[in-house]
Structures are given as C-alpha cells and as structure tokens.
C-alpha cells in the first residue's frame, strides 16, 4: 500500500524539526557544556578543554572502529579486551627493545605491534562472523574472553612495567612547550585521534567500500544481489574494528606507561554508548564516524563535568548508563514515528 508522504514536499518547519532531531546530540553537548560551565568556571578553561580531548581519546579510537560493525548491523563487545591484549603485547615487545632505540622507531614498533595484533585478532573474529556465520554478539563475547585470557597468559598475571619514558610519548606526550607550560600544550594522543577520525570517516563516507558497508547493513540481500561481496565487507569491517581497538590499546598502554592485563575493562560499553549517542542505529544501515566522536565528547564531558562538581565516581557510571538508555529510547521513538 502506498505511503502518505508520496510527493509531499517537506515544509520549512518540518525541515527545521528534522534538522534539530538529526543533530539533537550536538544540542545536548552544548547544553551540557553550558550547564557545567555554570556549575564550575574551571570547566571552560582551555587547559580543561584540552584535557577533555585526551580523556576521550581512547574511547574515540574504539568507537571509530565500532561504528563500522554497528552500521553493518553487528556488534563487537571484545574491543576493550582486544585493546588490553594489544597493550600487553606492545609493552612486552617494547620492553625488549634496547633503551637507546630512537623515538620514531619506538613509535613505529608500538603502532606496528598494535596493528598486527588488531589484524590477527580481527581476522579471527571476522572469519567466525562472516564465514561461519556466528552471531556477532556471541562471537565477540567468545573473543572477549579469549583476549582477556591471553592478556593474563602473556603478562603472567601482573602488569608489564619497566618501560622507558619514550614509551609514553605517543599516549601522554605533548607538543609546543612554552614558558608557562613546560610540558607542552598540544596532546599528541589528540592529534593521533584526529588523524584516525579523518581517515576512517573518509573511508566510510566517501569510498565505494564505505558505501558497500552501508548497503550491507541496510539490506544484506539487496547488497548481495547488487554485486557486493558481503562476506568480504563483513570480514574487513571486523578487521578494521579490531585494529582500531588494538591501536586504542597501544595508546592506553603508552599513556599509563605499562601493560596491564586488566586494562580497559568495560570500555566496550562506553564505546557502544558513544556510537549510539552519535546516532548510529543498532539495527544497522546508518551512522557516521564523526558523529560517534560527538558521542564520545558527550560521555567525556559528563565524566569531566561531574569530576569538577565533585560528584562521586560511582554515580558517574550510573548517570552514563541512564544517558545511554535515553539515547536508545529516543532513537526508537524516532523510528516508530517514521514507520
């Protein structure tokens, strides 16, 4: 049966409404910032805002990759554990490098190890999901447990430490040292995140590969019949997701200057939350990397703001949980309206 909207142009009023609806998360972010700024004047200080970008960096890395698989209609709950595994292995590798290793080489070793761990683990997950057709939730639940187990096996159950200061350059270092800021003011980790957001956003929104991801997530039958190799698309997306998680793990390990087997526990939930807050639909077919970044910002702002207002950190978790719930309910309400 036909739909009512046929041939009906949206009025200017409707256009405005749909614009607001589409960008509601941006307004939420702005409102939160205003609220916290009123609560504590320190919130809007440059130093705090720059801090904010470092606080959301790891979550951003995970969310970027997760966006790909959620658009496919899948999920990956192993990102936190894969990140931790990558952190442990990277720490182990770099501890065995000579202390005199020049910085560029060390950074290369860190990112290279992360990339490798991501590709291997992502291929494993991708194979199980795309070829063996295991439900993503179950496949990545298994992967999560395996990765966490490997973390403890490789590290012998304790934190991998004894790393050089250079090891923490990419995760905690800053550029542009000035007289009043001897440590530098521009966090390297934020630059890294921006580079990956740019690359991964372009890949998803501007390339044929990205278009095929959206198509597969929208309707896998249609995509297949349009000549899209949906198995390959699913596989590659999961590899990318794990690679981003593993690189996130490297940054986290570098930031802490160690490799903890128990690191990044529960980070997958924050990443899923950020992606959904950014408007990526859990049913697949729509979403964007840049928007996931806004979702990360919302979570980071809430945490940071509540810290400044001296709200108990246990409360912060509960609040974040409620906000995720709100985002999902809003998402569902919008869909119901459309249907």
């Amino acid at each position, binding site marked *: *049966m*036909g*739909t*009512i*909207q*046929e*041939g*009906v*142009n*949206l*009025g200017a009023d*409707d256009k405005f409404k749909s614009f607001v609806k589409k960008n509601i998360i941006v307004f939420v972010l702005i409102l939160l910032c205003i609220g916290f700024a009123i609560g504590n004047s320190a919130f809007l200080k440059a130093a705090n805002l720059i801090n904010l970008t470092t606080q959301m960096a790891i979550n951003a890395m995970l969310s970027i990759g997760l966006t790909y698989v959620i658009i496919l209609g899948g999920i990956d709950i192993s990102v936190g554990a894969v990140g931790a595994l990558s952190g442990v292995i990277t720490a182990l590798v770099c501890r065995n490098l000579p202390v005199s290793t020049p910085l560029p080489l060390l950074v290369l070793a860190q990112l290279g190890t992360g990339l490798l761990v991501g590709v291997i683990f992502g291929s494993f997950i991708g194979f199980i999901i795309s070829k063996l057709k295991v439900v993503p939730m179950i496949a990545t639940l298994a992967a999560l447990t395996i990765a966490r187990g490997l973390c403890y096996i490789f590290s012998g159950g304790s934190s991998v430490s004894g790393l050089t200061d250079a090891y923490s350059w990419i995760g905690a270092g800053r550029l542009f040292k000035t007289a009043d800021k001897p440590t530098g003011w521009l966090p390297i980790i934020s630059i890294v995140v921006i580079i990956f957001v740019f690359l991964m956003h372009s890949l998803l929104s*501007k*390339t*044929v*590969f*990205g*278009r*095929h991801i*959206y*198509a597969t997530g*929208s*309707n896998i*039958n*249609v*995509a*297949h*019949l*349009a*000549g*899209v*190799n949906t198995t390959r698309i699913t596989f590659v997306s999961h590899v990318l997701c794990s690679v981003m998680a593993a690189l996130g793990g490297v940054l986290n390990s570098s930031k802490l200057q160690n490799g903890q087997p128990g690191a990044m526990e529960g980070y997958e939930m924050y990443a899923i939350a950020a992606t959904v807050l950014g408007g990526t639909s859990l049913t697949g*077919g*729509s979403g964007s990397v840049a928007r996931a970044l806004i979702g990360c910002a919302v979570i980071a702002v809430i945490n940071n703001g509540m810290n400044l207002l001296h709200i108990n950190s246990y409360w912060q978790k509960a609040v974040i949980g409620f906000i995720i719930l709100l985002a999902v309910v809003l998402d569902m309400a919008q869909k119901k309206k459309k249907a």
Partner: protein
Amino acid sequence: MEPTLQAVNISKLFPGVRALDKVSLDFYPGEVHALIGENGAGKSTLIKILSGVYTPTEGQIILDGETIEFNSPHDAIHNGIAVIHQELSIANDLTVAENIFLGLEPTKGKFLDRSHMNNTSQAVLDFMQVNIKATSLARDLTVAQQQMVEIAKVINRKAKVVFMDEPTSSLSKHEIKALFEQINNLRSNNVTVIYISHRMAEIFEMCDRATVLRDGQKIVTRMVKEISESDLVASMVGRDIGDYYNRQAHTRGKEMLRVEGLCRNREFSDISFTAYAGEILGVSGLVGAGRTEVMETIFGARKADSGKVFIEGKEVKFNSPKDAIDARIGLVTEDRRRTGLMLKTTIKRNMVLPSLNKHKKGFGFVNHVWENQIAKEMVSKLRVKTPSTETIIGNLSGGNQQKVILAKWLVADSDILILDEPTRGIDVNAKSEFYSLMNDFVAKGGCIIMVSSEMPEIIGISDRVIVMREGYISGELSAEEANEQSIIELASIVSGSSGS
C-alpha cells in the same frame, strides 16, 4: 435489510495530506464487498479506521445501527471486526489451535483448557472441510493453509465483518479456489466480507458490490453484475486508459541468453531456453513452479548442479551476482521490501549501488558528481514521483519504488533484464507506465525475461511465453498462441494429487 457496518462521512487528515475525504459506505450482512483503488487511494486508511487502528478525524462508525468508537484494534475485534492482512499474522511456533484461540484462550480454573481448544478448533476446520490438524505446528503449513487458519480464527470468533487485504497475492490457482469456497461459506453465514484486491478477475468472480476509492474520496459503489472491468478501471484511474499494456511490435535481434540443461536439486531440472535481444520473454507458471529459483540461479545467486549458461553465444560461469552484473544482467526480484530495496536509504543510493565500482574515482572514492547527475537524469527519464533524489525510498509508493529498482539496472547498463513479478502490488497507472518503460528498453535492443503470475500481463506484453510446471519447462507459446487456456493447460498439474 439493515447494514452491519456503516461508515458515515469519514475523513482522516495526516500532516500535509487528506487521506480520506467524507467517505460514506454501507456494508450488508452476507455480502462480499470489493474495495478497490490505486495505491494511495485511501483503502488502507479506511480499513485501519474501521478496524480501530486509526481514529477518524471526523465522521462516525455505525455498527448494527449504533454509533461506536473504536479506541484500539482490540475494541474492534471484540465487536466482531476481523482483518486478515496480506502478511499473515500467524505465530509460527504455536499450534493451529493455539493460533485460532490466540488472545481468547479458554481456561478451566486457572489453567489453559487445551482439550476444549483443540476440539473446537478441529470442529471449525472440519466445518470448513480443510485438511488441517488442529494440533500441528503453524510453521509446517503452507501459506495457503495458514490463510485457512486465519479464516478459522475469524469463524471461531464469530466475526461479523472480515477485511481481507490482497488475500490471493501468494496463492496458486487451486488454492485461490479453496479460499473462494471459504469466502462463500462466510457469505452464507451472513458474515460481511470486505475484499481488497488489485485483481479484477477475482472481483468479478467473487464480489457482490464494488466500491472505488480515488484520492481519498469514494467515487462509486455499484453492483458488480452491472458494470464492466473497463468501467471499474476507468473510475479507479479517473480516465480511460485503453490498452494499458501498450503492446508494441518488437524486432527480434541476436541471441542474448541461452540456458542449456540447467538443474538444481529439488528445485528445477533440465531448464533450456533462449532469450533474444529486442524481445520480452514471458515466463509463466504456478507459484512454486521453480521460476524464481531458475532466475536466481542464472543470476549467480544460487549454484546450479549442472547445466550451462551462454551470454551472446559465449559460455559463462557466474559464481556470484557480481559476475552476472559484470556480464550486464540485471535482476528485479519479486519481493521489493526483502530483496529489492534498502528501505531507509535514499533513492540515489539505491539507484547507484550496483554501479559504484564501475564509476569510482582513484583510491576507491565514490564519484559524487556522476551519481548526483545520473540519479537526477533517471528520476526525470522514468518520471519517478519524488521531491528529490535524496528522498528516503521507503516513503515512495510501490510503483515509484519499482521504477527506481528498474533505474538501478539501467544505470548499470544492463543488456538483459530479468524481471520477477515486476508489477506485483503496484496500481494500474504505475503498471501501465512500467510496461512502456519495458517496451522502451526492448525497442533499444534490450532483452527482457519476465516472470509473472498474472496471466493478463503475460499475455498482454510477452513476445513469447515459456511455461514452467513443477520445476521443468512444460512448453513454449508464441504471442499468438498464448491465452489463458493454453497457458493453464501447460501450467497445471496433469493428473492426480495436488502440488501443495
């Protein structure tokens, strides 16, 4: 005689559109009343109002002489109104009896009275003279049998008014006959049946009266006996559409597709035929004859067990649809929503999907200039009614969606188009437009293979017809030889037991 159900001056406004405009209708006990109109004419809205899904903006519903307000579908059900939707609402994992009693389960004390449920259900099914066991799982039934269960549900609830929305769309000829017997049953029990269908022949066979809706208004209600099909169609579309197949003389060109001895386990065997440039090859047969399976196999979406496919005389092996698309074949599937469209995506993105790779720029980037241009071009060429190429395709009518799917394969430069039930569920005007697009394609040297269960369509537009029966080709007919009689003879099962 008093009408059972009356709609009095019913209007329904949605933001930006008047879906129904002062519609008044009476339905009498024991009549089968056809409700017809193009998509978007207001049929669905009217059904939804009369069955409690929507509340009318103005107007009244009168049931058995009393004004009534339905606050929910539940209200309507309790007042004896039943709707059998096109998509059946059968719970697959429940038994037949459980489905029949769904929502009205009989109890003995606190517990379910299963034996009463089973016995009553079986009695209803026996009364209907259908061979279904009340204790079997709904999942194990055919679509036709599931429909019978829906009717049993209606009888068991002693419904006074039954809406049937396109009840025959997925039934074969003899299943339709069985359905009609049940409708006659309902009629003789003084139930009002409101029958919604696009199929004129069925309306003339089954219905007592017919009401035509157009653009939300009631155009006419007439005794079916007193009108002709062309009258009805004319009042549906608001003009005389004449021969809407626009049959044109095509000139057959070179051989495009040849299939030799194609087999696939339990689906079809020994399929051989040839399709030429400049012709429309119709593929007829009953639902379940294996036509869709053959087409999907040719397209590389299923694997053949044996057999050969030739494109322009060269043997090809398609391992996936991608190979077929590269060989310039396009497939319009029979189920738009499931396999044809990305419903929540824009017209443009639906249209260019198979061709993105062919037109990509360096490093795999999408060529935005090209896609915007080609989408606009196609929308105007195929006269797709839409505000823009960025409109979400789910918001278009079926006919316009189908045009976009066709455009998808035109953008992909297809030489061979396989169309599987291309006009299913689209209205008369849109059909007519679709046929002329098909003619245009063939006139330019394209080759069309059209699978269709609609006899008039097959006869009206094909240059040649092959007929399938139970997985093999039972015959070939020229345009002159093809008529209802000759096709049915080839399509129906020859002797003994029925297929499903």
